[in-house]
């Protein structure tokens, strides 16, 4: 308020006049300690640029302890709500004067310490982590070469520790943050020689972060009239426009041939032969399932192998009886199948074949797969693939679908592909959200205009076979696989899978038993430190509330539900992760609605 008026005036006045600058400094230094924080904060927020801040505050941070604390500790480490511009101002200000530069280095080291501490990564909210990462990147952009060299070793150690903690996290956003910061640090430390480079998908956030590394030169330092200021700013801005990329001139200058040639066409007297037999060469795949098994296990002929992999899914679907004879064997082969040649979409082909086998003969194959999930000597990727396949098969079994028609037959449900690597929890949350929305509406929405063809819910008879074995052994650690220990990523995926299976089991006979078991499972794990696992647990509760019929919920599980409700209330208030809080809130709303619905209906 007051500063809003004061700062622009001071900016103008101190621009050219040294005396005014000194007056300003005196003014600021005389501010009593009690108000120092508010004053400094206000200046940092309102100053239009780091150089202006420098002119206004002078060396205040060096002279005044309180100011120093506010600038170097409070604004960077304890608060995280400020914008990037404010960060730029602050750090730029620290870098502009030789007296203040040591402060910049200390700040960088402290930021890196926070960034690298594993407890901070696990427990602080993602917004704060983003803020700290931005601050680190801006610091890096200001720090000069000799300074980097002097503290190279510390930078390297903190970077290594930090990267480890960040990559351990189950949330992809945090992993990306870690990768971007580590890459930037590494590129500053090793100016020549190989630089750390991660593979991640660029998105707006990473691009914004990377742009912070490049410092744009301060626009117009020369004191002049206001109009000149503006025009100079425009010029500088134009220089920063990226150069247009000109493609090299090796493109084909295609010349369209003129049809109406003056040339005599003596080709006319050459009569073409019949070329109708000239078709694309297709390698034949085996026609029988047992033939496929032979090819996949033994054959050296890579062309045949490729053709078999591509044809397998449709063969399995067309010959269910034959598949049932060899289903477990086929499932075993597919689980261990590795890419022999470079086929496009190999992973998807294999997954579709696995789902086909599982839906054709669910009980033995699910038994086999789940037993393998809990066995030794499988990679994490394979275990997560098993979970994905179970979910896709469950989805297929529970939704009536036309077999034989093409995949995109315009089914009203969104056909969600759980491809490996994608964040399947997001997709399922969307479905659950839609379901919740449809259940919390008070007035009739009207019939869905496309009548779903009805068929028996095939998942009914096998839901238990999918669900209970999965939930059985989660607390039994093996030498290479410890769900409750290091492999919390797989635990997270397991929990999400259980949520989906619960959701799909609506209207099946086993749903109440599943619900009870699931609630117990959630209860034991509810204080897990990994936020991805907690999100999964909350999705489990949502699925439970949506799938188990309300009467059964109230009669069979009243005590557990009450306990769950108090836990959910706790989560809403205290959980550091925003998604967890949102899910908990949703669950509480669902419970409220259920209660109201039941009260409205006379029992």
């Amino acid at each position, binding site marked *: 308020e007051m500063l809003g008026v004061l700062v622009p005036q001071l900016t103008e006045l101190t621009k050219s006049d040294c005396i005014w600058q000194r007056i300003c400094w005196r003014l600021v230094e005389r501010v009593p300690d009690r108000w120092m924080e508010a004053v400094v904060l206000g200046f940092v927020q309102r100053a239009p640029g780091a150089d202006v801040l420098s002119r206004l505050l002078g060396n205040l941070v060096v002279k005044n302890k309180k100011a120093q604390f506010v600038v170097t500790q409070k604004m960077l480490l304890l608060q995280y709500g400020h914008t990037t511009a404010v960060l730029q101002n602050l750090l730029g200000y620290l870098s502009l004067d030789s007296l203040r530069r040591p402060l910049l280095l200390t700040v960088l080291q402290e930021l890196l310490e926070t960034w690298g501490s594993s407890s901070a990564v696990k427990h602080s909210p993602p917004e704060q982590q983003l803020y700290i990462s931005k601050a680190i990147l801006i610091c890096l952009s200001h720090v000069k070469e000799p300074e980097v060299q002097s503290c190279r070793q510390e930078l390297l150690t903190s970077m290594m520790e930090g990267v480890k903690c960040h990559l351990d996290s189950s949330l992809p956003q945090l992993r990306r943050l870690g990768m971007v910061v580590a890459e930037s640090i590494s590129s500053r430390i090793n100016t020549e020689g190989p630089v750390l480079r991660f593979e991640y998908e660029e998105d707006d956030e990473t691009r914004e972060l990377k742009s912070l590394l490049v410092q744009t030169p301060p626009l117009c330092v020369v004191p002049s009239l206001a109009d000149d200021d503006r025009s100079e700013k425009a010029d500088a801005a134009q220089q920063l426009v990226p150069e247009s990329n000109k493609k090299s001139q090796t493109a084909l*200058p295609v010349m369209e041939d003129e049809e109406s040639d003056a040339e005599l066409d003596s*080709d006319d007297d*050459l*009569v073409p032969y019949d070329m109708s037999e000239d078709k694309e060469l297709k390698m034949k795949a085996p026609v029988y399932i047992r033939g496929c098994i032979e090819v996949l296990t033994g054959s050296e002929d890579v062309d045949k192998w490729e053709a078999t992999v591509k044809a397998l899914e449709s063969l399995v679907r067309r010959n269910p009886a034959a598949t049932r004879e060899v289903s477990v064997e086929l499932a075993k082969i597919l689980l261990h199948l590795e890419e022999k040649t470079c086929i496009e979409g190999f992973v998807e082909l294999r997954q579709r074949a696995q789902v086909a086998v599982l839906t054709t003969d669910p009980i033995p194959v699910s038994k086999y797969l789940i037993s393998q999930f809990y066995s030794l000597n499988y990679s994490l990727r394979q275990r997560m693939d098993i979970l994905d396949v179970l979910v896709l098969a469950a989805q297929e079994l529970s939704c009536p679908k036309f077999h034989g028609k093409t995949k995109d037959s315009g089914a009203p449900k969104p056909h969600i592909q759980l491809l490996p690597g994608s964040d399947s929890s997001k997709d399922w949350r969307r479905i659950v959200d839609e379901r919740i929305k449809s259940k919390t509406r008070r007035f009739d929405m009207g019939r869905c205009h496309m009548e779903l063809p009805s068929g028996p819910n095939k998942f009914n008879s096998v839901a238990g076979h999918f669900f209970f074995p999965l939930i059985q052994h989660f607390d039994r650690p093996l030498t290479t696989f410890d769900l409750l220990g290091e492999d919390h990523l797989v635990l997270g995926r397991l929990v999400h899978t259980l949520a989906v299976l619960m959701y799909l089991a609506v209207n099946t006979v086993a749903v109440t038993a599943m619900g009870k078991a699931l609630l117990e499972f959630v209860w034991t794990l509810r204080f897990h430190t990994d936020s991805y696992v907690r999100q999964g647990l909350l999705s489990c509760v949502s699925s439970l509330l949506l799938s188990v019929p309300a009467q059964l919920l109230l009669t069979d599980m009243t005590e557990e539900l009450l306990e769950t409700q108090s836990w959910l209330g706790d989560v809403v208030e205290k959980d550091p992760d925003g998604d967890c809080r949102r899910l908990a809130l949703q669950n509480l709303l669902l419970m409220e609605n259920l209660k109201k619905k039941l009260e409205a209906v006379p029992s």
Partner: protein
Amino acid sequence: MALPPPDPQFVLRGTSAAVHTLHFSCAGQEPDIPVLFSGSESGFIHVWNLKTHRVDTALDGHGRKSVYCVETMGGKDRLLSQGRDQTICLWDLAEGRTSVTDSVFMEHVGFCRCSLLKVAQGRWLMAMAAKGLEEVQVLELPSKTSVCTLKPEVGAKLGMPMCLKLWQLNCGSQPLLLAGYEDGSVVLWNVTMGKALSQLVCHQEPVMSLDFDSEKAKGISGSSEKVLRIWSLNEQQNLQVHRTHELVNAGVSDITIRPDKKILATAGWDHRIRIFGWKKLKPLAVLDYHTATVHCVSFSDHRNPRQRLLAAGSKDHRISVWSIYNET
């Protein structure tokens, strides 16, 4: 109603190895026997008698390493063969002899077939891939002196030369070389001056084979993708794309234009030989006989047009010989 494609006139069996290269020598007068030379993967060069359809002689000069190029130098008594043992052998086959008169050691290890051009009586130019990765060397035969080494500029990243063709517009004009490279470009070189005149990117994949019609200044190139490209040379010696033809199956291992410039034949990886009209690349026939990749095609040089033949050698050890479009 179009007629079904013709069957081969006859098939030569007996090489017991994949056939990589073929060359006819049928221009001699009677009582000279028309002959077909074939080079195979077992290292033998078979001399086929086209009257009896049997092997007259088998030449073993490459240490059982695959022979991938045979050419005659003026008549069937002098033969040049190139093999994977990095040697180019010159043979004297007159009067029943089978001796190697000379050999050239190649420092390049690869599959690039050399190209011969007769520049004067008894003098030949031969272009072959040279020691450096992207270089082509031109030698004069029989003296084996180096005429020039054609090096692309630094950073051109053309890759290995894949196929070469030496030509000159008419006797006495400057010899020029067309070279197809691994990165899919075709470069026109001036051999006397040793510098490149024009470069054209024809394919995304390596150029497998090319052929050129010097009268019409038009050439064609094929690669491992599905596309055949026809390009032309304008007055400023610049290469430009003229037409593109898309094939049904990918992969062309050899292309050759008949000496009368009316039709051309392509040897495909899909086991088929395709015949096109040269003027407008009109597809004329698809000859489906072989059961494995066709490695080479060659037209005969019979003086009598009615006797002209087309031969194709394939990985299935057979050489099919066809008589097609001989009426004109």
